[in-house]
């Protein structure tokens, strides 16, 4: 058999699946976002009209879109540094020559990553129950008044952020740990001989050596955090007072609750554009940091 044909036969199943069930729908989403596809069009396609950028214009004028974007950015801006900081801290502890029982600790810290979001969100809802939750009980011991964690618009998002950091930090921890292990020990040796404090070693050796890892982890984590959905769906249903409605939550409601598929596709595309812009910005900033 001719080798070209073999190669394409081997590729065919995967390419057909990706083409029909991913690339084609992505292109269709672009077209869909330019139409008023709704419940009526779902019933009879002849009701479909082309509205050009109408959905986008409408969305940009809707307060709910801007608040959903605001909540998502809040989640990303606080959640990503928090979870990456926790990952780096945990990785440094695990990498310390003083640490004992490393395999046990590594597994323990990684365990939340493999759990199901829905199940652990249910656990957190109980831990942060206003009346009987462990969080308020412990605060009560310190004479702090109970906080209505998931029922107060100011506290709901911070609680979700804490949950996400707990759930995810182990993933990046493993990547950072590999990055730390790749730093040549002689660098620290030389710094110690020069009398550099542990803090200066961290700033002048660890951080610069980890920079490529940090950038990659940062970009992947940011795009993951932009896709916030299951946490508010299970923990708050978007409430209280819509304070935890994320962009994807809006897309889900718009598309699969109200069946405004055209407008929901526009939400999805706007999210994609924003994520893309943020990624490019992060790459640019890191390059400029290299030049100075």
């Amino acid at each position, binding site marked *: 058999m001719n080798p070209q044909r073999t*190669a394409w036969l081997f590729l065919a199943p995967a390419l057909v*699946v990706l083409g029909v069930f*991913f690339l084609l729908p992505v292109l269709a*989403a672009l077209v869909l976002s330019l139409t008023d596809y709704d419940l009526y069009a779902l019933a009879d396609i002849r009701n479909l009209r082309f509205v050009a950028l109408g959905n986008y214009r409408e969305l940009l004028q809707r307060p709910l879109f801007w608040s959903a974007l605001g909540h998502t950015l809040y989640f990303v801006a606080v959640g990503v540094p928090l979870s990456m900081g926790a990952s780096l801290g945990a990785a440094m502890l695990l990498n310390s020559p003083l640490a004992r029982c490393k395999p046990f600790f590594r597994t323990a810290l990684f*365990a939340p990553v493999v759990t199901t979001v829905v*199940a652990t969100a249910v656990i957190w809802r109980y831990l942060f*129950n206003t009346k009987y939750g462990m969080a308020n009980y412990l605060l009560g011991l310190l004479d702090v008044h109970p906080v209505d964690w998931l029922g107060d618009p100011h506290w709901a998002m911070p609680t979700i952020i804490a949950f996400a950091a707990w759930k995810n930090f182990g993933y990046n921890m493993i990547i950072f740990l590999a990055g730390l292990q790749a730093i040549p020990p002689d660098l620290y040796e030389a710094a110690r001989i020069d009398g550099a404090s542990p803090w200066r070693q961290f700033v002048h050796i660890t951080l610069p050596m980890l920079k490529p890892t940090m950038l990659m982890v940062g970009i992947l984590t940011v795009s993951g955090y932009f896709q916030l959905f299951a946490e508010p769906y299970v923990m708050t249903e978007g409430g209280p007072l819509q304070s935890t409605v994320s962009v994807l939550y809006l897309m889900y409601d718009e598309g699969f609750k109200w069946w405004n598929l055209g407008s929901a596709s526009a939400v999805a595309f706007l999210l994609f554009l924003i994520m893309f812009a943020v990624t490019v910005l992060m790459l640019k900033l890191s390059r400029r940091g290299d030049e100075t």
Partner: protein
Amino acid sequence: MSPRLAKALVNGLLIGVAAVALFPLLWMLSVSFMAPGAASTLPPPLLPRHASWGNYRELFVHAGMGRYLLNSLLVAGTITVLSLACNLLAGYAFAKLRFAGRERLFQALLGALVIPAQVAMLPLFLLLKHMGLVNSYAGVVVPALATVFGIFLVRQYARGIPDELLEAARIDGAGEWRIFVQIVLPLLKPIVVTLAIFTFLAAWNDFMWPLIVLTGQEHYTLPIGLASLAREHSQDSELMMAGSVVTVLPVLLLFLSLQRYYLEGLLLGSVKG
């Protein structure tokens, strides 16, 4: 700082972080054995006074949890087996078979990784509705049958197979299919295990797409079933903790038994190139 103090500090912090990571999971297990209402008391009880399987019985007899569990096993198992086949074939082709436009096609696939999966979901729903696959297992399985990540992982690994080995087999007159099955697959075994765990865990834990495409309870997977139970029974903490145990325990055990493969795959997948 004295070395002994530093050692105590590092290990103390590790114990603290491990406690934070594990406490919610251990408490979930403990509360799941408590009698209804027992967890809604102050101070929050750490251990059940009279441990019982009551909540689990309630879940499986009345709440349909057994059905959800079987659905999850069926869906995640099917996705794992079939997507492994697709990704292995394609990853190997990208690594070792020569064809025009190979590198460009692969770069294009990697480029597609920047598109979040949710962009495709609305038209995908319409497409599957047209095909009659909404509210069926196939609706969850079919779109997951190939992943760029899986192809990438296999390609990275398969590039390490020496060309001489394949050439020698070709000179001996072995067909490409036979080479793949008898020579390549055994060499790819570690990455097969890694990718299998990754795929199974991702399929098991997946939430948004199954929530959209599975509209009837009889097809619910565990996360969807649990989320819907959590909305009905928001006050029954003990019952919900038991539901969480059923959902989390299988993947946690799978991870614990094969964690070496999982962590290796995580690192391999995070090195771009």
